């Protein structure tokens, strides 16, 4: 369609209307065939009789169709849910500065809390970032410890406010031995924990004996892995590891947080940088991309990753379509065989004077009922599956995955139903070509 026409007629339409029209357009072949074949006839009793007679076989056909549509729709919805969930998890992370290395490694560590060993940013660079006029917030993200599988991150109090807004309960930490937990951490205010050194099964639970962190606040839910994190003052991480506390030795530790002393800054794996204005992130990225530093926009790195995933998605979608096509062909082939079992009843109807269009319509309607019921069940299966898988992934990753069926899945199902219903014209055509008197004899 010419762009000028699209500009006038299509693009101004609300997205909902566009989706609705696409849905209707995809179903149009089915509706047109139904309108032509059903006009003036009453198929109800016959269809019910035919469907009931071979209910077991029909149920198998419906299940096959439901699985084909369900798997296809679930794959698309799940992929989109993961994509949106991971993107949402990176929302608050405007710019990350780290020591030169792998952007993806730092992205996974700093945003998705999958820590690994990386080089540290040293004091002078941190001070330079912190004091840059275009930087509103420079938050060290220091990890190295954990508690019962949950990552302990050393940072500053303003980062917590930036990440989750006002706390759900309690207050921000004020001294090194206090911590704030994510929304889903099973600790209550006042609980005290001893950090384990390292992560996972390799964590050394006795490495920091004698160190204790008291929980004083709980973040509001963010739908990110940070809901499972324990945030402590970065000074606490440094002190626990026997390092300087980031401040000049002559200063009492009654004050935590910035500014830090460049000479006594032990280092941090990553720094979250929030610019004064969003557009400044690009110039800051340019400023801090240099031999001793690496700066990247998590959203851009994620976008590159999702581009790769997009190819996977296209392949999955193609596979889903091929699967649906094969199932449709298998079902229609089965129906061709099944109509032989109905041959005598259909011949009777022809003998009683039923028009060819009626016979054609009976067979087509029979097939289409199975296809439509299968597709609707498939969407229900997809909705239940994506709900269950999303809950599992959310529990496993901490990233809130909210995969729901949307228009693309409805379009997929509508396209499948229409295409399959067109193929379903074949059995009707075959029935009309059968020898009537031979079929009557049975």
């Amino acid at each position, binding site marked *: 369609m010419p762009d000028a026409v699209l500009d006038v007629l299509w693009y101004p339409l609300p997205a909902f209307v566009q989706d609705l029209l696409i849905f209707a357009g995809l179903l149009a072949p089915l509706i047109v065939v139904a309108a032509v074949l059903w006009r003036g006839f*009453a198929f109800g009793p016959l269809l019910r009789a035919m469907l009931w007679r071979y209910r077991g076989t029909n149920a198998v056909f419906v299940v096959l169709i439901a699985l084909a549509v369900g798997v296809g729709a679930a794959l698309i919805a799940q992929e989109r849910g993961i994509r949106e969930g991971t993107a949402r998890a990176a929302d608050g992370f405007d710019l990350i500065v780290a020591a030169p290395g792998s952007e993806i490694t730092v992205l996974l560590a700093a945003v998705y809390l999958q820590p690994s060993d990386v080089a540290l940013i040293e004091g002078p660079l941190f001070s330079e970032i912190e004091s840059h006029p275009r930087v509103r917030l420079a938050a060290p993200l220091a990890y190295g410890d954990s508690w019962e599988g949950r990552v302990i991150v050393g940072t500053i109090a303003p980062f917590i406010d930036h990440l989750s807004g006002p706390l759900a309960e309690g207050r921000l930490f004020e001294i090194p031995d206090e911590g704030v937990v994510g929304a889903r951490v099973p600790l209550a205010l006042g609980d005290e924990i001893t950090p384990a050194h390292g992560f996972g099964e390799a964590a050394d639970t006795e490495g920091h004996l004698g160190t204790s962190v008291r929980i004083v606040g709980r973040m509001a839910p963010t739908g990110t892995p940070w809901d499972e994190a324990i945030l402590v003052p970065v000074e606490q991480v440094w002190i626990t590891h026997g390092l300087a506390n980031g401040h000049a030795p002559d200063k009492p530790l009654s004050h935590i947080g910035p500014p830090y002393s460049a000479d006594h800054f032990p280092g941090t794996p990553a720094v979250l940088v929030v610019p004064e204005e969003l557009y400044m992130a690009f110039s800051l990225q340019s400023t801090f991309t240099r031999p001793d530093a690496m700066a990247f926009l998590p959203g851009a790195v994620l976008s590159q990753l999702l581009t790769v995933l997009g190819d996977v998605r296209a392949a999955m979608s193609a596979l889903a379509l091929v699967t649906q096509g094969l199932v449709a062909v298998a079902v229609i082939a089965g129906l061709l065989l099944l109509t032989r079992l109905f041959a005598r009843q259909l011949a009777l109807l022809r003998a009683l*004077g039923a028009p*060819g269009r009626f016979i054609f319509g009976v067979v087509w309607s029979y097939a289409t009922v199975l296809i439509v019921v299968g597709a609707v069940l498939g969407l229900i299966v997809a909705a239940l599956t994506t709900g269950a898988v999303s809950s599992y992934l959310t529990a496993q990753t901490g990233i809130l995955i909210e995969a729901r069926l949307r228009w693309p899945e409805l379009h997929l199902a509508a396209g499948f139903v229409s295409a399959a219903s067109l193929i379903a014209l074949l059995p009707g055509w075959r029935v009309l070509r059968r020898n009537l008197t031979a079929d009557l004899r049975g």
Partner: protein
Amino acid sequence: MGLALTLRDVRVLGDDGGAILSVPALDVAAGSLVGVRGPSGAGKSTFLTVLAGLVEPDAGEVRWGAQDLAGLNSEGRAAFRRASIGLVFQDFLLFEELDAATNAAIAASFVPKASRKGLRARAEARLERLGVPGGARAITSFSGGERQRVAVARALAHGPQVLLADEPTAALDRVTADALIADFTALAREDGLTVIIASHDAQLLAQMDRVISLADGALDA
């Protein structure tokens, strides 16, 4: 009122080119009851399928009243059956999943909407006249005689002028067959139908106005 039947030089050829039905001339008066007898394989069923327009003869004229079936295509012949011909088969050919009333009124599925109500009413009336108990009962609970009565009600529900029956009593015991024959012939005479029945049943044939014979596809009037 029934239709008169006129057959002239009707021939139906088999796959080998030989005639499986040959009727040089046959005239049946409107409203008469005609039996067709002959041994198995004599061509009785083929004869009925030609009269019903289910098989197009290779030659000749099949005329019901003023309507020459040779002048109709398959859809036209179907329309003629829909309007004018009732069919009864040896083994009933009912939809087991439907009740008696729905089976008897099955043609309501494909007749014009305006005719459906009348067709259903006639089907109910015929079932009642034929003594079929409980029109809404499942067909699976019916005896053979009851099933054939439902099939007869179905054949009459659309108000045909012609009734063609192929061995309607062959699957029934004697008592049931006799009862069906009595009701069947009475109904046909009440409605003035032209009836042609192919049968081996001497008791049934004895109720006919006229009996014709077929042997090796040839009519022996």
